[in-house]
């Protein structure tokens, strides 16, 4: 009995409730006439699409910069990576690798500047980050119009300049990872390549957090004065964590795009940070501590609910309630975690 209690305390009621809700959706799916196999395939796919962006939040949480609401900055680096590569006409695996490379270059530059900024607003990172993210997206909305892109399938039809809102990736590297080694189990397609790529990134962050730098980063988040007295540069560690987070955000959007099949620019990145933050919190992370388990579990639960509610609930209620539920879950989880901030930290 006591072991059940400690399990609940460790796992947390919110997660248990959400897990039970997700389970009930899976149980209800066949009853209301939804194809369970396809649904599970969807959940796995969306898990792969979003997991790296959730993962991108971890370094900054660990270094004490809070939840990275400025994730769109990383996403912009990723958008630059993919659009420039497409402009260069590179396709297939080469295209994807070059896109990753360009994303890393821009991610490092953006992350460095963003990190410097956050070092000047210690204690208010999350609020500032959100507005920095918003502003950057809007600034880039102008840039997408004026940057010298001229490839026919990238730019707007009549003007001949300025990027389209959505650019098809089909002829470049769309579904490249999804289709790599894909197989089906009883009608459920498994996006092997995508899941492997996610696994690789998770492993990278796992190892990174165990390096000397990663350890210093965690200590900075845990007690900056202690870290400083141990000869660690607090500012530098925070900047490094922001750079890693920004680069991962960029790579995350690349994985998202190839699976989704479209590159979306202009205001599309605006609210990308919220589902990621919410997923991490559902996974059991706090504002000051996050682990790989939080990332994987949280993304699965969050995306599971997101995928299953439309198909199941809409079939039952015949209306668009699912969108409402999605918003309540996303933002409710963020509020819950932020109000618990002090409790979790001490």
């Amino acid at each position, binding site marked *: 009995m006591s072991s059940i209690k400690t399990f609940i305390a460790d796992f947390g009621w919110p997660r248990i409730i959400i897990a039970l809700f997700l389970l009930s959706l899976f149980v209800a799916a066949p009853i209301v006439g939804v194809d369970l196999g396809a649904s599970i395939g969807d959940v796995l796919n969306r898990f792969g699409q979003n997991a790296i962006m959730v993962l991108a939040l971890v370094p900054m949480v660990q270094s004490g910069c809070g939840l990275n609401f400025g994730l769109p900055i990383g996403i912009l680096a990723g958008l630059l990576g993919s659009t420039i590569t497409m402009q260069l006409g590179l396709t297939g695996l080469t295209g994807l690798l070059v896109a990753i490379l360009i994303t890393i270059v821009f991610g490092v530059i953006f992350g460095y500047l963003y990190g410097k900024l956050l070092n000047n607003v210690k204690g208010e990172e999350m609020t500032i980050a959100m507005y920095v993210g918003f502003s950057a997206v809007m600034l880039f909305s102008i840039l997408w119009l004026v940057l010298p892109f001229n490839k026919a399938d990238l730019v707007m039809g009549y003007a001949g300049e300025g990027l389209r809102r959505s650019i098809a990736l089909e002829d470049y590297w769309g579904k490249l990872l999804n289709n790599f080694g894909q197989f089906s189990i009883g009608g459920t397609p498994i996006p092997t390549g995508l899941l492997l790529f996610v696994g690789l990134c998770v492993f990278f962050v796992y190892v990174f957090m*165990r*390096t000397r730098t990663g350890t210093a980063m*965690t*200590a900075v988040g845990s007690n900056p*004065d*202690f*870290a400083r007295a*141990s000869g660690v540069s607090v500012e530098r560690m925070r900047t490094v964590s922001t750079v890693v987070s920004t680069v991962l955000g960029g790579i995350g959007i690349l994985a998202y795009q190839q699976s989704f099949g479209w590159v979306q620019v202009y205001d599309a990145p605006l609210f990308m940070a919220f589902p990621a933050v919410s997923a991490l919190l559902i996974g059991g992370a706090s504002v*000051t501590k996050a682990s790989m388990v939080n990332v994987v579990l949280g993304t699965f639960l969050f995306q599971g609910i997101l995928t299953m509610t439309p198909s199941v609930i809409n079939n039952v209620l015949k209306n668009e309630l699912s969108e409402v539920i999605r918003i309540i879950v996303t933002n409710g989880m963020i509020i819950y975690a932020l109000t618990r901030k002090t409790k979790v930290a001490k």
Partner: protein
Amino acid sequence: MSTGTRLLSLRGISKEFYGNVVLEDISFDLDRGQIIGLVGENGAGKTTLMRILFGMPVIAETGGFNGTIELDGQPVAFKTPFDALDAGIGMVHQEFSLIPGFSTTENIALNRESLKTNFACDIFGKRMSVLDRVTMRERAVKAIHTLGVKLDPDMLVSEMPVGHKQFTEIAREIDRKNVKLLVLDEPTAVLTETEAEVLLSSMRALAAQGISIIFISHRLHEITKVADKIVVLRDGKIVKDVPVAGVSVQDIAAWMVGRDVKTKAAHLSVCKDSVYLNVEHLWVDMPGETVRDVSFQVMEGEIFGIGGLAGQGKLGIANGVMGLFPAGGQVTVGGQDVILNNPHAALNSDIAFVSEDRRGVGLLLDESLEWNIAFTAMQAKRQHLIPVLGGLFSVRDEKSMKALALEYIESLEIRCTGPRQRAKELSGGNQQKICLAKAFALKPKLLFVSEPTRGIDVGAKAIVLETLRAYNRDYGMTIVMISSELEELRSICHRVAIVDEGKIAGILPPTADVAQFGLLMSGLGAGKNGDAA
């Protein structure tokens, strides 16, 4: 001037915080118009005693106190400071509680303003009345006059020199109608010599009008000058309660710091002749512990003690050398210059530091003991790491971290459930041992320990001091120990320096007379050349 009628008597006051006795059987009397000088080292219990007298809520929250307080022959037990105020007790704290944007008058009359009623009061009640500024100003002038000082009643507090702020605080207390007793907690600490002189004469003037004063000060010559009677607290007990006549500053100093038991000079290690640490003209900008100009030398293998009262800068020395606060001057260790303002460089000069701020700087409270002990060695010395991919990068070596933690848990007798327990779950004494383990893990040649026994129990204290002594004896580690507890310094150090007002007031051998230490602490040292050991 004492008029012989009893105003206040304390009988058998005792107080403990969580089983830690801070006051034991305190009894003394105070007559009308009498000034009592209350002295004692930091932590002797002065503040707690005043809190009890003043009915501060913190006392009731921590279990109340034993004993009785009688005011004017009536037993009283104040539940809140407001009750104490109503009974005619005024208190001036070390920190100012004035509103900077208000004038002297407004501050003096704050919350007791003279009011004028108008027609709105008839409808909406008293809250609509307006300030009667003329009467308020008269009251302020009267209070200032009673004090016997020159204060502009219309000056804004933000524009005043520090001394005037202090006078405003006192004027506010005596503006109360029935004030009988004033408690002044180190009122002269922020004043210049002349301002202090003025304050002392105003205290005399107040006493002449029948107001009794409890005067707390570290400046012993002020006590001898102004007080009628002196009460010396040490370790929560009254050691002396005598009329001030015929008492010298030296006597008070000896009562304050002295122990009845003669300290045995423990078998100290023999230190070498070579200078290991040389500090010249060090200044450190550490808030509340400013170091102005400090020079000293520490021999190789020596345990060098630094004592002095709180706020005089003794803590700043170690923090400055370690690069934790802005500092300047010249510091050499083992013949090599230490780069200041750079913690990493200091650690690489084979120096380690045990901070006085255990929970704030010393520990990662939310992390495991392994992390706490091994982290600094990992970051500064690149130990406990496993190289990966031919040294391209390295990851932490959890096995060696655990081994290190276990080694120190055993050797320092750290009580814990294991190396994975989180630091915040340990008791104060064991946390302090973790801090020591962290420093020892760096294998330093020079160790700064700041307040190593603050807030830990007697048993842990003994282990901590014995450990320091053992490392000094067995490994020849040079130690600079900074402590507020003079006895402790005298029991373990080869030499003890006393810091006063950001400078070294003098360096004495531990065998020197306690009175000499007391004099140095009170800024009355034998002169800058000091009695070098």
